[in-house]
Structures are given as structure tokens and as C-alpha cells.
């Protein structure tokens, strides 16, 4: 149990006498305080469905990304297993000092993601290799004793898992006080393998198909960095003694760099290990895949606006590198969107959405009318239609259906063109529009990308691409368009293929032409020999080059670039321009920032400096600067202390406090005149000061008597 107390001590918890109130289902929170006309139930169901889809998609992505790593690991395990089998026979293996096969798994600094990786790793190992997988965390193993206890405990549980018929035996073992030593471990291993060996043949077949003959014991150290040196060293020395008796494989989870092994283990110990390194995919690539599969697709109707996406990406890049947190943030934005936007009921697959439009209530129709993007749309219509849209619900519903379809088509076009443009910009020097597709996506979401300076310079650079590059890029674009589902790209594909064909034809024509030009100029040079004429011809040559006697290639190139430019202008319109974009786009980035990137110091300061912000009490509403006397004592004390220097005189502080407090309550000048401070005020002051001390703003000082030291700076 946890307490809210910051101090250490013994806390007594009485069991709550009443049974806990039946927790209300989550769905109720959606409808709380809102009338039911806004489809809160349906919204909740849609939200759940969408999240489940996305969740399973992310799991799939993770599995795919980890597959390579796990396959490598398993083949390493297999290799060391065969080595263990043959060890007793060969001279070479006998002579070699026996080493413990060790896999060092470098996973990157995104520690929060590791848990999932290890979980799936141990599942994979348990399915394919061995039932005896143990994962250890540093905080569970402060000493070698705890480590062995944990190890044995987990192994005994494995034993129960593997065949339930022998459960009784195992329970007996675990009920006996296990002697935690390597000797008993090897004895246990012997007994377990013997048991499986003497099983009935049918059973044996099933088990051997899944696991290897002598399944190794795999010990995973989840966070290598946090283990103490002594524990690790002792464990390795001990297992080095027993490696002949049972196969043991260690897996080190490393967050920083493999050098940590050498910092933790001295030469004499690390020479007992046969270390092989494995590197997982970098978290940035992981994020790129996640964004690619979750955001840059029409598969899921929900979309993030530029600002919200930027917040999530910034948290990732600036703070934690954790893809799990990114996905959590994405989940939060989904929930928030469905909770706060009544029209999010339409945020589902197109056919379903069209159906739902028909059953919209009147208040929902009003909601549509009040959308800024819809208003813009109405204003652009002729006046009769405007009136119809604003008054007739049925007509509105029809228009909404077509608008939703338009939005869907917009997305279908948007993503292929975005990828196509990214293929172009990713090959440019200095990446004016960003290296990653997500940066380009953000740029296109926010504003008309073709109006930006970066786009201008990108187009300039595109006009300087070499032929080979350009052809490769065009080829890629064709692939992107053919793989996309949109039907309206058949023209585009044709056009691109035509460009490609023309580039190829050019090759033949160009070589002859170039020769022509060079021959003619050379002739001219040979004819004129005096300085004046030479100068003149050179100038002419220069002039002609500048004024563009464009080669065919250059003409074709600019044609291609113009074509791409036209694609961008017609398809990469920012989403905010689309009517009804609020239905699928989540754009309150502030909420995300508040929840995901909390600033405790700032919140504390606001609470103390401006209590109205949290208490919402009208009497507290005041101009900043002056000190209200109705504010809680601690706020008054806090504000007064902001005006002091590093050391605060308690007496002065008390006087100031009592002045402020009495200025409200007693207007009697006579009582103020007396020097004596009211005892109650004194007590209130002391309590407020000690509260400030608890919050860490001040601490008692030994430099001067009756003074406290400020622990914060600034704020005057």
C-alpha cells in the first residue's frame, strides 16, 4: 500500500469497513454531465473498437520488428547448445576453459520499451527453446542470495507449467524450504531432465517437438546497468563452476553501450563469458515504422493534427525516446477526441459513417453547423443553398455525406502524393523539407506547403537532379502510386511512365547532339585567333548558355518537376481547409501537453500565486501583484516570501503576514496599533511556514538565528 506521505515511517492501514462501491463502467464517464442526444454511448463503443484495432496493429508491428533479433538470438542459443552437447567428446572443447555463452542485447536508452521486448522474448523462448526462462531485475536482487532465491523460485514455477501431472511433486519441493545454492539447482535440473526422459513416448514426442533435448536454463538480466558488481561477479563465478553440469545461457539487457560489461566485470570474470552482441532496431526507426503504419494510412479514420503530432514527436525526441509512450500519447488523444468532440461519432469507416449521418439528432446537426470549417464551406455556397444548409436537417445530412466522402478521397490522395514528394525531398542535399516523412507530413498538415520558403528551395534543388537519380526516383513514385488504393492515379502513373520512357529515349539522342555542339565551338575557336574576337566569342558563348539553349534533358526535367509541383498543389492541401475535418482530426494539443509533459514546479507556483486558477472561488479572483486576504494562508505566505532575498527574517515575515490578514478582517485601527500579534494568527503563520518547508521552498538556516533560507530563486 502507498501513502501520500513523503516521510518514512510506519503506517497503519485499517481495512475499509464498507465494501468498495461498485466501480461504474468506463462508458459512464463519457456521458457524465452531458445529454444523451450526443451519442456518447456510440462514441465510446467506436473509440473502444478503434483502439483495439490500433493496439493489435502496434503489436503486430512490434512482432515484425523484433523477429529478426529473436531469430538471431535463437540461432545463437542453438549453436551454444550443440557446443554443450559435444563438449565432452572433443579434445579441443575439453581443453578450452569452459565459458558461459552470453548474449549481450543492446536495446537503446528507451528503457520503458524494454519490458515489452523482454516479455515477448521470454514468450518466444518458452515456445521454441526451453521452458526454463528466468528474467531478473536489478531491484529484486540486491544480494546474491535474493538473486538465487528469485532464480529458483521462477524455475520451480516453470516446472509446474511444463507438465501439470507432476504438479504435486513440484509443490512439495517448493513447500520445503529450498536451499538456494547452485548445487541444489544442478540437482534439480538433473531430476527434471531425468523425469522428462523417462516419460511415455507419446508425451515425449510432444515435448521434444517444442523444446530441445536438454533445454538450457536461460537467465535474462533485464537491466544490466543497475545490477551491483558484486552480485553479478559472484553469480558468474558460481555458474562457471557448474557449467559442466547443466547448460546455462545468460542474456544481458543493456541500455547504453556494451562497454558497461567491462565496467561492471573485471577481466578475470568476463573471461568466463563467451559474449556475443546483438543490437535491436534503433528506436527512431521503430517510431518511423509506427507512424508509417498508424498515421500515414487511410486504414484508421482517426487523424492527428499538426500541433498534436508535433507535441507527441517532441516528447519522443526531446525526452524519452520511448515508442510505448508515443503510443500511449496517441491513445490519450483518441480518448480525448471521442470524449470531447460530439461529432466524433462520425469518425469511423466511410460506409458506417454515412449510415450514422442519417440518424443524427437535431442537436448534432447544430453541432455540425457550428464547426468553423463547415461555416467556411457554407459561406462559399450560393445563398439559397446557404439557407437550406442552415435550416433543413435532411439537406444538411445529405451534404454531410458527400463531404465525408470528399474527406475520405482527400486522404486517399494525400498519402501517396506525400510519399512521392518525400521520395524527391529525401534525396536532396541538406534536406530542406526534412529527412523523415513525418517532418514532411507535419509541414503539409500545418499550412500550404508550396507557399513555404523550404519548398521553394527544395524545388530549386529538384531542378538540379542528375538523370540517374531522377529516373530512380520516378521509378519509386510509380511503385508508390500503383500500390496505393486510389483509382484516380491511373493518369498520373501513365504520365510518370511516359516521362521515364522519354528519359530513356533521350540517352540516344543526347550523345550525338552534344558532340555536334562541341565540334562547332571548337571550329570557331580554331578560326579566330586575335584577342578581340576570342573575347567576343567567349562572351557570346556565356550569354547563350545563360539565356538557355536548354538541352532536351533539362527541358524534360523541368517538365517533371512542374508536374510534381502541380500534384502537390492539388493534393497536399492542408487538412484544415477541408470541411468537416474536425470530425476526424484531433487538434487540442494543449491537453496533450498538459497531460504528458507536466510541469510540477510551474503548477505549484500557479497554485500558490494564483489560487483562483485551481479553486475557482470568485472571491479569490484578483489582479496579479496585490495580495488578497481571502486567499489561503499558505498563498499569502508564499507571495510574501517571493519578495525576500536568500535569507528571510521570520519576525518581519510574521508581521507582514499579520498585516495582510488583519487588513481584511479587522478594520479596527486600534487593534492594529498594538504590537502584539494575535495568537491565532501566529499559529496560522507557523502552520503555513511549515507547509512551505514541506513543499521545499524554504529550509531552516544555521547562518542566522530566526532566519530561514530560500531554496528557490527569482520570482520577485
Amino acid at each position: 500500500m502507498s501513502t501520500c506521505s513523503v516521510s518514512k515511517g510506519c503506517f497503519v492501514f485499517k481495512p475499509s469497513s464498507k465494501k468498495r462501491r461498485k466501480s461504474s463502467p468506463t462508458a459512464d464517464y463519457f456521458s457524465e454531465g452531458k445529454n444523451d442526444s450526443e451519442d456518447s454511448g456510440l462514441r465510446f463503443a467506436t473509440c473502444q473498437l478503434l483502439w483495439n484495432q490500433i493496439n493489435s496493429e502496434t503489436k503486430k508491428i512490434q512482432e515484425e520488428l523484433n523477429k529478426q533479433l529473436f531469430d538471431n538470438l535463437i540461432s545463437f542459443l542453438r549453436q551454444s547448445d550443440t557446443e554443450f552437447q559435444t563438449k565432452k567428446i572433443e579434445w579441443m572443447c575439453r581443453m578450452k576453459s569452459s565459458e558461459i555463452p552470453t548474449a549481450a542485447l543492446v536495446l537503446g536508452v528507451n528503457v520503458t520499451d524494454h519490458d515489452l521486448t523482454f516479455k515477448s522474448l521470454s514468450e518466444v523462448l518458452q515456445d521454441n527453446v526451453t521452458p526454463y526462462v528466468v528474467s531478473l531485475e536489478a531491484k529484486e536482487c540486491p544480494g546474491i542470495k535474493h538473486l538465487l532465491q528469485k532464480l529458483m523460485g521462477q524455475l520451480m514455477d516453470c516446472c509446474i507449467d511444463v507438465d501439470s501431472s507432476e504438479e504435486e511433486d513440484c509443490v512439495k519441493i517448493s513447500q520445503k524450504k529450498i536451499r538456494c545454492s547452485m548445487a541444489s539447482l544442478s540437482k534439480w535440473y538433473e531430476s527434471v531432465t531425468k523425469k522428462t526422459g523417462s516419460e511415455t513416448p507419446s508425451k515425449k514426442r510432444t515435448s521434444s517437438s517444442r523444446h530441445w533435448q536438454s533445454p538450457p536454463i536461460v537467465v535474462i538480466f533485464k537491466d544490466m546497468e543497475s545490477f551491483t558488481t558484486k552480485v553479478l561477479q559472484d553469480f558468474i563465478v558460481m555458474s562457471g563452476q557448474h557449467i559442466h553440469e547443466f547448460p546455462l545461457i545468460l542474456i544481458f539487457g543493456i541500455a547504453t553501450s556494451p562497454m558497461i560489461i567491462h565496467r561492471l566485470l573485471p577481466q578475470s570474470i568476463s573471461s568466463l563469458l563467451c559474449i556475443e552482441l546483438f543490437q535491436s532496431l534503433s528506436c527512431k526507426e521503430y517510431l518511423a515504422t509506427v507512424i508509417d503504419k498508424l498515421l500515414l494510412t487511410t486504414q484508421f479514420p482517426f487523424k492527428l493534427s499538426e500541433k498534436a503530432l508535433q507535441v507527441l514527436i517532441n516528447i519522443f525526441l526531446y525526452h524519452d525516446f520511448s515508442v510505448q509512450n508515443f503510443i500511449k500519447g496517441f491513445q490519450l488523444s483518441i480518448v480525448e477526441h471521442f470524449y470531447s468532440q460530439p461529432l466524433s461519432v462520425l469518425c469511423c469507416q466511410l460506409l458506417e459513417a454515412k449510415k450514422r449521418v442519417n440518424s443524427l439528432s437535431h442537436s448534432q446537426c447544430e453541432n455540425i453547423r457550428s464547426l468553423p470549417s463547415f461555416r467556411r464551406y457554407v459561406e462559399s455556397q450560393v445563398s439559397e443553398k446557404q439557407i437550406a444548409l442552415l435550416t433543413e436537417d435532411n439537406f444538411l445530412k445529405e451534404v454531410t455525406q458527400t463531404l465525408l466522402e470528399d474527406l475520405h478521397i482527400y486522404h486517399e490522395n494525400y498519402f501517396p502524393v506525400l510519399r512521392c514528394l518525400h521520395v524527391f525531398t529525401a534525396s536532396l542535399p541538406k534536406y530542406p523539407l526534412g529527412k523523415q516523412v513525418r517532418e514532411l507530413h507535419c509541414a503539409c498538415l500545418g499550412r500550404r506547403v508550396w507557399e513555404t520558403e523550404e519548398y521553394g528551395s527544395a524545388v530549386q534543388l529538384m531542378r538540379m537532379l542528375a538523370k540517374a537519380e531522377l529516373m530512380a526516383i520516378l521509378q519509386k513514385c510509380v511503385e508508390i502510386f500503383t500500390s496505393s488504393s486510389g483509382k484516380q492515379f491511373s493518369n498520373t502513373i501513365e504520365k510518370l511512365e511516359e516521362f521515364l520512357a522519354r528519359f530513356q529515349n533521350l540517352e540516344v539522342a543526347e550523345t550525338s547532339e552534344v558532340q555536334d555542339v562541341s565540334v562547332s565551338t571548337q571550329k570557331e575557336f580554331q578560326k579566330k585567333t586575335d584577342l578581340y574576337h576570342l573575347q567576343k566569342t567567349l562572351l557570346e558563348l556565356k550569354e547563350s548558355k545563360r539565356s538557355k539553349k536548354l538541352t532536351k534533358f533539362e527541358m524534360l526535367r523541368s517538365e517533371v518537376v512542374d508536374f510534381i509541383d502541380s500534384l502537390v498543389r492539388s493534393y497536399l492541401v492542408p487538412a484544415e481547409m477541408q470541411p468537416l475535418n474536425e470530425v476526424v482530426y484531433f487538434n487540442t494539443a494543449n491537453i496533450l501537453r498538459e497531460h504528458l509533459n507536466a510541469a510540477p514546479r510551474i503548477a505549484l507556483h500557479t497554485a500558490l500565486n494564483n489560487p483562483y486558477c485551481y479553486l475557482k472561488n470568485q472571491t479569490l479572483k484578483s489582479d496579479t501583484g496585490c495580495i488578497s486576504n481571502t486567499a489561503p494562508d499558505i498563498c499569502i505566505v508564499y507571495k510574501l516570501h517571493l519578495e525576500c532575498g536568500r535569507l528571510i527574517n521570520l519576525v518581519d515575515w510574521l508581521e507582514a503576514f499579520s498585516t495582510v490578514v488583519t487588513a481584511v478582517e479587522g478594520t479596527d485601527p486600534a487593534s492594529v496599533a498594538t504590537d502584539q500579534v494575535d495568537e491565532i494568527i501566529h499559529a496560522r503563520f507557523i502552520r503555513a511556514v511549515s507547509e512551505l518547508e514541506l513543499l521545499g521552498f524554504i529550509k531552516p538556516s544555521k547562518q542566522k538565528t530566526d532566519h530561514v533560507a530560500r531554496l528557490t530563486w527569482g520570482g520577485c
Partner: protein
Amino acid sequence: MPNFEHPAYPEATLLHLESMVPCRESQVSSLLSIFGERQHFTFPSIFIYGHTSSGKTYVMQTLLETLELPHVFVNCVECFTSRLLLEEILSKLQSLSSENKHGSHVPCDTFNDFVRLFKQETKDLQDQTVYIVLDKAEQLREMEANVLPGFLKLQEMSDRNVTVVFLSEIVWELFRPNTGCLEPFTLYFPDYSIGHLQKILSHYHPPEYSADFYSAYINILLGVFYTVCRDLKELRHLAVLNFTKYCEPVVRGEANERDTRRLWKNIESHLKKAMQTPTTSQKTYLQWLSAHAHVELPYYSKFLLIAAYLASYNPARTDKRFFLKHHGKIKKTNFLKKHEKTSNHLLGPKPFPLDRLLAILYSIVDNKVAPTANIFSQITSLVTLQLLTLVGHDDQLDGPKYKCTVSLDFIRAIAR
């Protein structure tokens, strides 16, 4: 003519023993003379010390096994508490004296119990000296204070014919308890010389090649590696790893087994390369290491680490000068005190408070940094990644102090 002479044991056994322990003849013969005959009482305790892989454990084990003396061999690292150690000794004694191998588990909590149970167990072995060998005896110092003196006086306390042998890598002086104790007989195992190594390594030649061929190979190997590595275990490992390479010309039929010169040419470059990584047990892995030493960090973590580095290696007085725009004039002369003229990098990192770290962070990051919870949690995660260390107690809530533990090269790589 056997080196070892002892009336109690048959000559054949002694000869066999001699062949088993090359280059340790003098130690073994002195041990033999100390042990005396089976029923003789000897020293209550013997302390054997010497460097890693100087053959302490191996010699002791072979000696006791070939002479078939009743003994118990225990590794003190494995038995990390006194209870485990004592129980381990008792259970091994049990299997020694009685026929049934799986002796029942005897609970034994204190040394007093141990002495009592020990007397019971050794009743049948009255006429022979029982040897208890404690390998890696350094660990005994970390157990209860009575364990080491207890073992030293076990003979006297139990009134049995028993000798305790301690094997250790450190000298006896570091063991001696404050309260005084019975001094053991100490015996030093010196390091193997190059000649010894040559002899021992060639002793175990592979069956398919002649001893001469293998010893020529060992000669080459030692010539290359002796300067960097004298550990017998590792040398043996190296010898095995590189032997196939050495044999290649012979296997292909290009060279004769006697053609040492040719074989030397073939292996030389290979061994030189292997020498770059003396611990070849880690294979090509050191090269891999340098390639992957770089750590990717989030944006603010990088700045936090750089700030921490600056705070660790710059004196706090200079902060104002380095991180404020208008710091006023500072006289260049006598700016540094004498002791500060030595490079701060030689002195190692100094602890700094959290506030200073944050202040430096705010001044080195270009745009404004909000002190969000994420920044603070990043500091903690840097600590768990061992890039920073917390100085003082973990539970200190106000004003925690940190140290930066990364090197200048690391910071340079990050700052790029």
C-alpha cells in the same frame, strides 16, 4: 627415480602424481611431508596462496584424489553464507563416510552445531586425517567473525584428526582477525615461469599430432603472447583457438610437421592480429565494441549530460564567468589558485547539487526549457543508466547531489 619419496604410499601412485603436477614438485613434496602418514596428525590449518592460475586448486585436488585421502572440497563463493558453507561441508562429509550418496539434509545454523555434527560424522574416520579444503577463502572474511577462527581451531575444538586447508589469492596478513587466532602454516605458490608454462601447455597435446609438433607450436605462441598474458588458463584457451590455423598447411599437405619455419610464417600475422585482443574469448567482439560505443540519447538528456559534465569538472566559482553574459572583469593573473592548475580531469569528477545542474542546463540550451516532470525523470534515468551517479543517500529528498561518470570522449561524441 621419483622426486617424491614417502614411505606411506606405493611408488606407482607417487610416480603417477608426479606426472600429473608438472612444475609444482617442490610444493607437492613439502605438502606430502607435512601430511605425513594417513593416521598422523598434521597442522590444524594450512594456508596456501598465490596468483590466479598458479595451480593451487588443481594441485590440491589431484593430490588428495590420487592419494585417496578423505577430503571435502568447498568453494566459498558458492556458499555465500556461513550456514550454507557449514551445511555443504556436513553433507559432503556424510556422503564420504556412509555409502548412500544422498545424505539427508542436516540443518546447521551455528558453528557450535557444526562442531557437534562434525564429531558425529567423522566417528568412522578416526584413524585417518580428514582434509577440509576451502577454495576462494577470501570470502570467509565477509562471514560472521567466528567462522575463520573457528576453522583455524577446528582440530582442537572437535578433537578429531582434521586439517583445514585455505586456498586464497591474497596473503595471510589480510586475513588475520583483530582478536588474534591460531596461525596457520602458510605456503606460497609462485607464478609459473615461461619455461613452466611451456612445459605445462605442451603436456596436453592433441592425440592426432605428435608432442614435438605441439610443443613447437606452443613455443611460437608463448613468444607472441607471453608479454601480454601470463594467465595459464587464458593461454591454454588461446592455444586451442589458434591451433587449427597453425595446422592448416599440414592438413592441406603443403608443409611437413617438421617444417617449423614455414608454419611460423603462416601463423605469425594471424597471432599478431589476435594479440590486439588478448582476451580472444570475446572474439571479434572488441572491434564491434568500438563501433557501437556511441550511445544515442534524447535531446534534453544530451544537454543534461553535458551540463553535468561541466558541473563535475569546472569549479563552481567559474560558473559565473562561463555562463553569464555580463560577468564583469576578472583579473587574468592569479585567477586560478595553485592547486587548481593541475588538470581537473586528473582529479576526477566532483559532486554538484541538482540546482547547479539545472542552472547550467538553462544557460546552455538555446531556447527556453520548462522544468517539466520529464526533465526530472530524465535525470533519474541517467542515474539508472550509470551515466550519472547519485552521491550520498538515495533517500535524501532535498538537494540531492550527483556526479558525472562519463569520459570526455563520450561527451565529445554526444556534443557533436
